[in-house]
């Protein structure tokens, strides 16, 4: 069902975002702990990077139906 597509995308986005954010956060924390002497900026950096990645992914995902993919191009 096409109407559910959006929902699914949003679910993916959120999940992805959560994962990226979490991973970023985690990495940030790790980096911060490990390499950056418990500064918060790696955490926010990584989490922000994560978020940003998630955002980008989400956007791409949402756009994907309008873009011509390579596989389609080559057909």
């Amino acid at each position, binding site marked *: 069902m096409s*109407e559910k*597509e959006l929902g699914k995308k949003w679910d993916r986005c959120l999940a992805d975002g959560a994962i990226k954010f979490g991973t970023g956060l985690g990495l940030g924390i790790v980096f911060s702990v490990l390499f950056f002497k418990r500064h918060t900026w790696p955490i926010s950096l990584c989490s922000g990077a994560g978020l940003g990645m998630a955002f980008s992914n989400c956007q791409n995902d*949402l756009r994907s139906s309008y873009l011509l993919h390579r596989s389609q191009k080559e057909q």
Partner: protein
Amino acid sequence: YTAGGSSGAAKVVAAGLLTVGGGVGGTILYAKWDHKFRAAVENNVPYSDWLLGLALGPAYQGDIMKQVRMDSQHVWVIIADCFEKITGSEFLPHSEASAEASHIISAISEISTVPAPCDTESAVKGHCSPWSPSLSCFLSVSDCSAAVSASLEECLASSAKATLQAIGAQEAAVQAITQHIHKLKEAMEAEVPPPEKSSQWKDLEAALADRTSAVNDAETALLKAKEALDSLKSEIDKSKGLKVSAVRPLVLAAEENLHNMVVDLDRVVTKLQSAESESKIVSQYSDLVNEAKLQFQREVSSLTPEIQANWKGLTGKLSADDLNALIAHAHRRIDQLNRELAEQRVREQIHIDASLEQQKLEDQKALEKAVLTAVQHIKEDTRLEQERKLSELREVMEAEMRTQLRRQAAAHTDHVQDVLKVQEQELRADAEQVLGSKLLEQETSYRQLSQEQLDNFTLDMNTAYARLKGMEEAIDSHVVAEEEARKAHQLWLSVEALNYSLKMADADSPTMPLESAAQAVRDSCHDNDFALALATALPEESLQRGVYSEASLRARFNALRALVRRVALVDETHNSLYQYFLSYLQAALLFEAKQEAPPGQLCSEDLDPFRLLSYASFCLEHGDLELAAKLVNQLRGEARRVVEDWLTEARLTLETRQVVSLLSAYANAVGLGTTQAP
């Protein structure tokens, strides 16, 4: 043990006795029942005949006699016995009597050639006369000669009896005479002592008495026989006078009988006469001898009066004088006798001549008599022979006449047969002609009738056939129409089923696959292109998966509306997240009418998703899915993408519904078309 032994022995003894007694008793009983067995036992076992005679009585032989059939031999024997009884004399030799009887009976038996079986038994049982057995043959001849034959029979019987009697008497007389002669000779010549001599003389006297009585009997019997023969002769003449042909052989036979009897009688009479003559001579001789003896006796007694007749025994008593006187007397007697002898010798010739003459006369007389009788007999014989020959000739003639008549009759029958044949042929020809003509008539009429019948029948058949054809056609058309109607009905039913299945959809789930229904529709209209085309025009999805009902679509649309509102601003160019955010914001802030009636024509302002949605909602609420779908189809961008599925679904549903409605309309039309207007 001893007691047991003794009882055992007793038992053995008792058993043995029982066995023996049983055997003997059984033998006796069986001998009583089976005579042959009895005979066998008597032959083989000694003293058994005594025992069996004691127990059962003598062996019964009588049944054997009864079982022997009376053939002529036994008849002869019995007849001979009866004959003996009739004559009453026991010393008749069997052969003579049976010879006489057989001679007569053979003469009689020629009568038995008259066609009739002889009742020998009854004859034997009845009179026991030798002629009656064959005489009873007469009884079976025809009625007109029955009286004659009866009378003849009577006469024959009586004459036969008398003749037999006479013959018997004659024979008896002959016998008596011979006996007497013999006795006389004996008495005269034999030298026997006096007491026996007297007994001899007594016998002689008895014989003489017998002879006289026998001769008298013979004479009377002869007279009787002659009488009977005369009566028979008269009877025969009378029956001859009747001139009945059937009687003639009887008469002939009776005549022959008569002749035979006469012959026998005469023969016997001659025998008697010869015997008598012989006896005469002998008696003469004896008389002479007696006379001489008496004479001598007288002389002797005259000489010697004291000496009695039996001088032969007195040889010691006579004195010398007596003896001398006797011798002288004897001498004188001898001289006298010599002189007489010489005289006799001289007169011998004369005496001989005289006696010869006498004898000649007597002989002549006898000869004449004999010749006469012989002539008579021969005459009779010839006459009888003539009669016989005549009868034979007559028979032959009759036979010839019969054959001639038969020939004539045969000729006549032949002629008649020929005539009949000719007549038969003629009649047959006529009859056949008539028959032919009649048959022809009948045939023609029959043909006519049959032809008529055939024609009628053909006509009827034709009409029937035509009607049948009409009926068939009507029925066929009916059948066709019915078939059409049925098909239409079926189509309609299937379409209805399809329709129904369309309607039968739960909310939010598609109907059942319409494949089966569609198949049914296809089946029910496989010869109708239009319907077939329509049936095949059903979208595949609907067939496989089924379609959503309008209600579910409506519900779905309502769910979709929110989403479409939210992504209203997102399209191909504006599809970043920011746009998404903006679109969401717009959706949160913009309020449109829930349902708005769509205009007849859409302008560019109406292409706003919110307006479109309200229009579509309005249409949906009012059951116009088509318009709603059209309106929804106007959405662009992400909204369009979101609504895509719904749209396809709606399209499918719309398609299906359209096809189904078309089919239904068609089915209705067809159904209506098939119903015949009165």
